[in-house]
């Protein structure tokens, strides 16, 4: 997932990684050590990669000015329209699961130019037909000031792309060793897109060496447990 995310980073861009996002952090750090050395990398509260000195306010103010090119987000539920739910699963007054809440999400999802969604669980309960609550909609009417939105979804099984014409998610590629049927079976809505989905290019040996070496070391400063458990030996 980190290697796929790394491909979304373009050189010279301003890329921000929010809280609880170790996989995007690893992907962005890989990109900055490979094809995007001049990208401005922001990883929230990372001692080496956080340019702000006044809490989340300074970052949110910066983002509200439209200065983030690429951002990453997950969701308790993600639906076919690219809507995210991080509020509640079930009824709001009688939640099955109380999720953490939107925080900056319903602003960043509109104002970061491209948002890549990631979810480590690709299942019908994560990828639903319609979210129980819309924290952040995938698209908006022209009456709403919106300069950005979802572009892709990266999971352990596949990459989905957000079609900006139909305003729906469709299949872009299936990871090596995974079948189209497996992806469809794990997704709670019909996946549009090609019938014969291409295979996601696997990470190269160079990618893996960078991930397991310097990226792991840097990620450990913020996510020690993730760094200890999610990487194979260098």
């Amino acid at each position, binding site marked *: 997932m980190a290697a796929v995310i790394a491909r979304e980073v373009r050189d010279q861009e301003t890329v921000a990684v929010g809280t609880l996002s170790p996989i995007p952090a690893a992907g962005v750090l890989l990109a900055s050590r490979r094809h995007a050395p001049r990208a401005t990398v922001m990883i929230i*509260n990372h001692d080496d990669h*956080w340019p*702000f*000195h*006044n*809490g*989340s*306010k300074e970052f949110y103010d910066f983002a*509200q000015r439209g200065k983030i090119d690429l951002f990453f987000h997950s969701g308790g539920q993600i639906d076919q329209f690219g809507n995210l739910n991080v*509020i509640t699963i079930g009824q*709001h007054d009688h939640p099955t699961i109380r999720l953490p809440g*939107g925080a900056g999400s*319903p*602003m*960043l*999802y*509109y*104002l970061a130019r491209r948002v890549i969604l990631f979810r480590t669980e690709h299942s019908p309960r994560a990828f639903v037909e319609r979210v129980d*609550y*819309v*924290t*952040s*909609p995938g698209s*908006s*009417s022209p*009456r*709403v*000031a*919106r300069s950005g939105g979802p572009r892709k979804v990266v999971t352990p099984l596949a990459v989905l792309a957000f079609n900006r014409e139909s305003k729906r998610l469709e299949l872009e590629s299936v990871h090596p060793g995974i079948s189209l049927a497996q992806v469809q079976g794990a997704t709670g809505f019909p996946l549009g897109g090609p019938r014969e989905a291409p295979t996601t290019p696997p990470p190269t040996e160079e990618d893996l060496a960078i991930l397991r070496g310097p990226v792991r070391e840097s990620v450990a400063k913020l996510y020690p447990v993730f760094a200890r458990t999610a990487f194979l030996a260098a």
Partner: protein
Amino acid sequence: MPVPGHVGSDYETLRPEFKVIADPYSGKDVLLVPAIVPDVAFIHALQADTDGNLLVDEKEDDFLLAQASRVVVASTEEMVSPDLLRRAAYGLKLSAIHVTALVATPGGAHPTACRERYGIDAGHLTEYLGLAKSDETFRTYLQRYIFDLKDHGTYLAQVGLAALAA
């Protein structure tokens, strides 16, 4: 106050106090939210001086929280002279004008972290999360870490931070 984004989300129905209006400048729809004004904010400072000025962590939101709240109760890891506080390299200086009360409390951020003093106590937080699941087990937590301990120094010793006790 206006908040970018948000329009078209379920916050419009879940939070009836949020209003969508046409922005008089751009004509686009914009969401307005009332400012949050906490009655009391409790914050933990990295340092405080004898005039009540604070040095707060620049990666946290204490600086903003203190300015929003009616009453600000601060604890501090360490008391220093005004001159030393002025020369601090890291952190934000929060003027005493925002501070209602100040308590010198080394280890006061535990079980969360205090920068360059102590990290998050994951074991303690895990224990807390387990015991906080019901009122009955939560009473066990309160008994163990508050009622059964005679003072803050005893608490610090109990949680392995005895070195911080003055």
